[in-house]
């Protein structure tokens, strides 16, 4: 069954928990014992009504402070699709959690209170989702019941958001007027908003076309592991195991291996269940090649006429995730596909204000939750594509060698000339 991953962001007040709670409840994804536990916890905290946020906030500190600190993952399914919600806090101090949630999402659900319209937090969620190239956006204008289910108000907010989104790279945007509290347009179309002719939120999530979210054009196979059994049954066997990043591969095709640049052809594509005649994302397979080449982890198999950029210099948008700021001239380990190498921050072109999109050209450091355009010099060449074209070969993380912490996330821009 197809899987759709989406992010939500926001605070308790905008009805996010109510909306998620309703989606889970209506799809029968909340167990009775979980509801009872939330009910007990709500009463012990003397809340007036059952607080579904307690379902999401799993850590002691979150429950005590009534806030979401980390990304919480929730799972539900309908007969049509499986869903994973990455629920993240909306406050600016949790930008790194929003970035984390967005990195694997197909869709960003931007929630707006119909009374307040588009606020800073909804803009920030949109900017970060666009930066992480989430392919689909849904603008949910919530609490329509509190504005009398007014069509003009909905359209006003929709236009305001659209004009903001036009400054971002948002390819697919759908706006839906809802009331999470009363269930209007959440699972079924609401009789209270006859003027609205689009689908309910769940119907949209179930039917959205997502097959083209993955790059099926550029064949990329980063080698993860070399399999050499040395057993009697597999005497001279040498296979390259990994997950197809993008594009597709077939036995018999000519391939090019980086960094050597040598070409050979695919002898067979194998799995523990037997050979396959095509491999495409997200399949994990083992390739056997016609010639014995020197190939190890971190190398990349592609096609002679469709190769990634090969360079030690990469320009990227970097989101900084650590309390220790990123310094110009700082050294970090870059982890990109199956390759890890030391790198140096050679330039910080500007720091981006995620609320105003203003570029600060005088910045010399990136602090926690800040985003900037950076040039890295890497000790060995990376084999990459622009992140907007290919999320797998265009994304990397930066690791501090002293602490081993993941301190930055990068989205590579087009090739440096």
């Amino acid at each position, binding site marked *: 069954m197809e899987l759709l991953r989406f992010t939500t962001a926001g605070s308790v007040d905008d009805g996010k928990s109510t909306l998620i709670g309703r989606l889970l409840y209506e799809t029968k994804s909340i*167990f*009775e*014992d*979980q509801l009872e*536990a939330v009910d007990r*916890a709500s009463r012990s905290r003397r809340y007036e009504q059952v607080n579904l946020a307690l*379902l999401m*906030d*799993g*850590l*002691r*500190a979150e*429950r005590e402070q009534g806030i979401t*600190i*980390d*990304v*919480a*993952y*929730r*799972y539900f*399914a309908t007969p049509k699709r499986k869903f*994973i919600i990455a629920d993240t806090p909306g406050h600016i101090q949790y930008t*790194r*959690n929003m*970035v*984390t949630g967005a*990195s*694997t999402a197909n869709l960003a659900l931007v929630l707006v209170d119909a009374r307040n319209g588009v606020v800073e937090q909804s803009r920030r969620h949109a900017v970060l989702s666009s930066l992480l190239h989430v392919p689909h956006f849904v603008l949910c204008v919530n609490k329509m019941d509190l504005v009398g289910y007014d069509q003009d108000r909905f359209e006003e907010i929709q236009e305001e958001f659209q004009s903001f989104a036009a400054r971002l790279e948002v390819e697919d945007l759908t706006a839906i007027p809802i009331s999470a509290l009363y269930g209007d347009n959440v699972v079924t179309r609401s009789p209270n908003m006859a003027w609205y002719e689009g689908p309910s939120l769940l119907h949209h999530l179930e039917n959205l076309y997502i097959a083209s979210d993955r790059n099926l054009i550029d064949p990329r196979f980063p080698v993860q592991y070399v*399999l*050499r*059994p040395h*057993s009697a*049954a*597999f005497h001279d*066997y040498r*296979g390259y*195991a990994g*997950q197809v990043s993008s594009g597709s591969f077939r036995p018999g095709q000519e391939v090019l291996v980086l960094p050597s640049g040598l070409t050979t052809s695919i002898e067979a594509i194998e*799995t*523990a*269940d037997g050979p396959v005649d095509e491999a495409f994302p997200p399949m*994990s397979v*083992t390739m056997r090649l016609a010639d014995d080449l020197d190939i190890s982890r971190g190398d990349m198999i592609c096609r002679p006429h469709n190769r990634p950029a090969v360079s030690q210099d990469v320009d990227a948008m970097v989101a900084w*995730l650590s309390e220790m700021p990123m310094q110009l001239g700082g050294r970090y*380990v870059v*982890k*990109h596909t199956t390759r890890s190498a030391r790198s140096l921050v050679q330039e910080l072109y500007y720091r981006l204000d995620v609320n105003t999109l203003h570029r600060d050209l005088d910045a010399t450091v990136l602090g926690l939750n800040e985003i900037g355009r950076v040039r890295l010099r890497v000790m060995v060449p990376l084999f990459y594509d622009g992140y907007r074209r290919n*999320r*797998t070969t265009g*994304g*990397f*993380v930066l*690791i501090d060698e002293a602490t*081993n*912490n*993941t301190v930055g*996330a990068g989205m590579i821009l087009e090739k440096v000339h």
Partner: protein
Amino acid sequence: MLLFSGGKDSLVLLRLAEKAFWPCPMPFPVMHVDTGHNFPEVLEFRDRRVADLGVELVVASVQASIDAGRVRGPQGRDPSRNRLQTVTLLDAIAERSFDAVFGGARRDEEKARAKERVFSFRDEFGQWDPKNQRPELWSLYNGRHHRGQHIRVFPLSNWTEMDVWAYIAHEQLEVPSIYLAHRRRVFRRDGMLLSEGPYIAPDEGEEVFEASVRFRTVGDMTCTGAIESVAASLEEVIAEVAAARVGERGATRADDRVSETAMEDRKREGYF
């Protein structure tokens, strides 16, 4: 090292490891933390599965930890050795200097586990610090650690209970017989059906009766409850799971009922 208890999640994990390295044998041993209170049917299944695969099995024994004075056996009415497993597990990891430990935990099981990373860093004391976890983007996992620290790896993080059963059915994997409905002598305690056996006995007033039951999770005999069921095949189990209105741990795990944050508290100490 891969933690293998014979439970449904770990048998799926073992299968995935077997497939990932085919045609090579998996390049690490499997380990079971044996509380000494396990279901005999599960131990029998464990030994058979490991022998079939030809992998090394390390059994870390809680009884040995008690005998060596590393931990004290549980006191009072609750005979569960559940929490003691942490010491045994951490000792075994230190003894063999394991860098990484694969586990079958899933985020949908429990609210503290919902916050868990796929690659979860543990310090020199085996502690999990939920507020200070490494960000995890795309599928770029950071397994770097210093000597004495280790990484817990949870490849099934995004699987649900239903996904696990669907995979078992798809692969036609054998499961320990206690997952399927069978007749067993049980008694009711705190709303759960516990199995009468050598490690736990009914108190006065707790009546023992025979019923058709099966287990949704596999843990210690002392803290794992059965559910009344007639689902005797994988297909029937899947139909039952699909219709279940109570979560698997909520229904059958006394160890999660200690407090609202029982799992988080155990995980901080280094529990699975």
